C-alpha cells in the first residue's frame, strides 16, 4: 500500500470522477459524499507519502514496471510531498464547502457534472505534482486547465466571456511550455526530469537550451498569471461560482508556481538559472510590479471577489519575487508563502461565497452590520485578512518575514520597499472592508430593528472556521514545517 500511494493518489480521484456520472444519474445526492470521501482518501494518501519522504527519502515509482528514463516515472521529493499535502487538504475542505454553495448558485442538472469535473481538476493538479516526466506534466497541466475552464464557464452571467479569454491565454501558455519540452527533447532525447538534470549541464552553452528555458518561463508565467500576463485572471475568478473561485484561486496558481520552481531549479541547475540569462533579474522586477499593480487595482474594486482576485495577482508576485532573489531565505519564504497563500485565499473566497449565499451580492459598499448577522464568518474573515496583511501571530507574517529576509540578503533594497509598500496597500484594502462591515451605519434599513443572527449552513461554516484556525496553527508551527520539509526542498547551491 505504502509504495503504491504515489500512484493511487491520482488513480482514485480519476476513477471516482467517472463513477460519479452513472451514480449521480441513479441518485444525485450520492455524488457529494462520494466526492468528500475521495478527497479525504487523497488527504490520507498525501500524508502517507509525506511520511515516507520524510523518513525514508525520495520516492521513485515506475509506472507499468518500466525503468526510467524509458518508462514513465512518478518521482516525489520533499517539495512534491509538501505541495501534495496542501493541494489535497484544500480540495478536501472545498469539497465539504461545495454542497450548499453550488446548490444555490448552479442549475440542478449541472451538479453531477460539477462533482465530476471537480475531481478531474483535483486529478490534474495532483498529477502535475507527482509526475517525474516533463511531457506528462504538460498533459496533467492541460487536464487541470480544461477542468478549470469548464468549472469557470458554469458561473454567472459574464462567465463565458471571461472563460474564453482564459482559454486563449491558457492555451498559449501551455503551447509555449510544450515548445520548451520539444526543444529540450531535440537536444537531449529524453523527457525524464532526473535524466534531464543529468544530461543538461553539458549543453548549457547551446542556444536551443536557452530558447527552451525562455519558452518554459513565459509559458508558466501565463499559467500563474504573472503581472503583465495576468489579464485573464480577475475576470475568470470573479465570475466563476464561489466554490470554484475558492479552489482555483488557492491551487492553480500555486501549482503553476511549483512547475516554475521545478523547471528553474531541478530541470535546470540554479547556477544556470541565476547566471546564464538575466531571467531572475527580470522576474524579480516583474514580480515587484505585480505586487504594486495588484494592490492598486484591488483598492479600486467594489466587488469583493474581484478585489481578492487582484490581491491574488499581487500574491503571485510575492512568490515569484522570493524565488528570483536566489538565496535560501527567499526560496524558503516563497515555498512557505505557497502554503499560506493557498489557505488565506481559500478562507477569503469562502467568506465571499458565504456573503453571496446569504446576501445575494458581494458589493463592498453594502456590507454594513454583517458582523451582527454572521459573527463567526466575519471573525474568520478578519483572521484571514490580517494574515494576508502579515500581522505577527498569523501565518502570513512568517512567509513575508522570510521573503523580506531573502531580499535583504540579496541586497535588493527596492524589492524590500515594494514588499512593505504592497503589504501596506493590502492592509488598506482590507481595512476598508472591515470598516464598511463594522462601523458604517446601514443605509438601506432606516428602521432600527436589530439584524438577526443568520449564519450560513454548517457545511459551509465549518470549512471557513477550520481554514481560519489552521492559519493560526500554521503560524505557530511554521518552524517545524520548514525544518521537516522545506529546508530539504531548497536546491543545492543556495
Amino acid at each position, binding site marked *: 500500500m505504502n509504495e503504491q500511494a504515489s*500512484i493511487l493518489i491520482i*488513480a482514485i480521484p480519476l*476513477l471516482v470522477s*467517472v463513477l460519479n*456520472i452513472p451514480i449521480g*444519474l441513479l441518485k444525485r445526492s450520492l455524488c457529494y459524499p462520494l466526492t468528500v470521501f475521495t478527497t479525504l482518501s487523497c488527504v490520507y494518501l498525501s500524508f502517507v507519502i509525506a511520511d515516507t519522504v520524510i523518513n525514508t527519502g525520495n520516492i521513485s515509482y515506475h*509506472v*507499468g*514496471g518500466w525503468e526510467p528514463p524509458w518508462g514513465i516515472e512518478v518521482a516525489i521529493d520533499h517539495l512534491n510531498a509538501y505541495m501534495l499535502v496542501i493541494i489535497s487538504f484544500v480540495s478536501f475542505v472545498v469539497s465539504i464547502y461545495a454542497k450548499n454553495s453550488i446548490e444555490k448558485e448552479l442549475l440542478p442538472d*449541472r451538479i453531477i457534472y460539477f462533482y465530476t469535473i471537480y475531481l478531474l481538476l483535483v486529478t490534474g493538479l495532483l498529477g502535475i505534482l507527482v509526475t517525474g516526466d516533463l511531457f506528462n506534466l504538460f498533459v496533467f497541466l492541460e487536464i487541470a486547465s480544461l477542468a478549470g475552464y469548464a468549472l469557470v464557464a458554469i458561473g454567472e452571467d459574464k462567465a463565458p466571456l471571461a472563460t474564453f479569454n482564459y482559454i486563449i491565454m491558457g492555451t498559449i501558455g501551455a503551447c509555449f511550455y510544450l515548445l520548451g519540452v520539444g526543444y529540450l527533447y531535440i537536444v537531449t532525447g529524453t523527457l525524464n526530469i532526473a535524466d534531464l538534470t543529468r544530461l543538461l549541464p553539458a549543453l548549457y552553452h547551446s542556444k536551443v537550451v536557452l530558447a527552451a528555458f525562455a519558452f518554459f518561463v513565459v509559458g508558466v508565467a501565463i499559467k500563474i498569471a504573472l503581472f503583465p500576463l495576468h489579464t485573464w485572471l480577475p475576470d475568470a475568478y470573479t465570475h466563476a461560482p464561489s466554490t470554484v473561485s475558492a479552489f482555483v484561486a488557492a491551487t492553480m496558481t500555486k501549482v503553476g508556481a511549483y512547475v516554475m520552481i521545478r523547471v528553474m531549479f531541478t530541470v535546470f541547475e540554479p547556477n544556470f538559472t541565476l547566471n546564464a540569462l538575466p531571467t531572475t533579474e527580470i522576474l524579480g522586477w516583474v514580480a515587484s510590479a505585480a505586487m504594486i499593480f495588484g494592490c492598486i487595482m484591488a483598492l479600486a474594486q467594489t466587488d469583493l471577489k474581484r478585489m481578492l482576485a487582484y490581491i491574488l495577482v499581487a500574491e503571485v508576485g510575492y512568490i515569484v519575487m522570493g524565488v528570483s532573489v536566489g538565496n535560501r531565505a527567499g526560496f524558503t519564504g516563497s515555498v512557505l508563502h505557497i502554503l499560506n497563500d493557498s489557505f488565506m485565499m481559500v478562507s477569503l473566497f469562502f467568506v465571499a461565497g458565504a456573503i453571496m449565499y446569504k446576501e445575494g451580492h458581494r458589493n463592498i459598499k453594502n456590507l454594513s452590520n454583517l458582523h451582527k448577522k454572521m459573527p463567526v464568518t466575519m471573525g474568520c474573515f478578519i483572521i484571514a485578512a490580517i494574515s494576508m496583511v502579515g500581522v505577527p501571530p498569523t501565518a502570513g507574517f512568517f512567509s513575508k518575514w522570510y521573503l523580506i529576509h531573502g531580499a535583504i540578503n540579496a541586497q535588493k533594497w527596492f524589492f524590500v520597499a515594494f514588499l512593505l509598500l504592497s503589504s501596506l496597500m493590502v492592509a488598506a484594502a482590507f481595512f476598508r472592508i472591515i470598516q464598511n462591515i463594522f462601523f458604517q451605519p446601514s443605509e438601506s434599513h432606516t428602521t432600527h430593528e436589530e439584524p438577526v443572527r443568520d449564519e450560513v449552513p454548517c457545511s459551509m461554516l465549518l470549512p471557513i472556521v477550520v481554514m481560519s484556525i489552521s492559519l493560526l496553527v500554521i503560524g505557530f508551527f511554521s518552524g517545524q514545517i520548514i525544518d521537516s520539509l522545506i529546508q530539504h526542498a531548497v536546491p543545492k547551491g543556495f
Partner: protein
Amino acid sequence: MVSRYENVIIETVSRLLIPAMQLFGLYVIAHGHGSPGGGFQGGCILAASFILMVIAYDIKEAKSRMSENLNTILCCAGVFIYGGIGLLCVILGGNFLDYSVLHKVLPVDPVKARYMGIFGVEIGVGIAVMAVMVSIFLNIASGGEHEGAMK
C-alpha cells in the same frame, strides 16, 4: 439545429456505408496493440460513422439509436476500463498498469497477459474516444439545445 433533409441517394449510401465503417472501426481497435491502429483511431472511426448518420438523417434518428445518457455512461465506462485495468494490476501486486501480473486472473503466461492487458486498455480508450467525439458533436451541432447539454 440540424434538421432532416430527405435525399434518397445520401440516405441509401450512408445506410450501406455506416455498417462498413463501424466494422472497420472495430478492426482498427482490435489490431491496435499489434499493428498500426488503436483505440484513438478506431474510436474516431466509430464516432465518424455515427456523425455520418446525424448528417444523413437527423439528430432525432441518431438519438433513437444511442441516447444521451447511454453516451455519457459509455464515456465513463471507457475511462473506467482503462483506469480499472491499471488498478487491477495494483491490487494483484504489480505496479500501476504493469499488465504482466494479469496472468494471475487470465489463463495465459505473463508475456501474453501484457498483450491482453494492452488490448483491454485499447478497448477502453476506443469506447471513451467514440463517446466523447459523439457527445462533442451532438452538443455543438444542436447548439446546446440537445437534452443534457450545457444550458
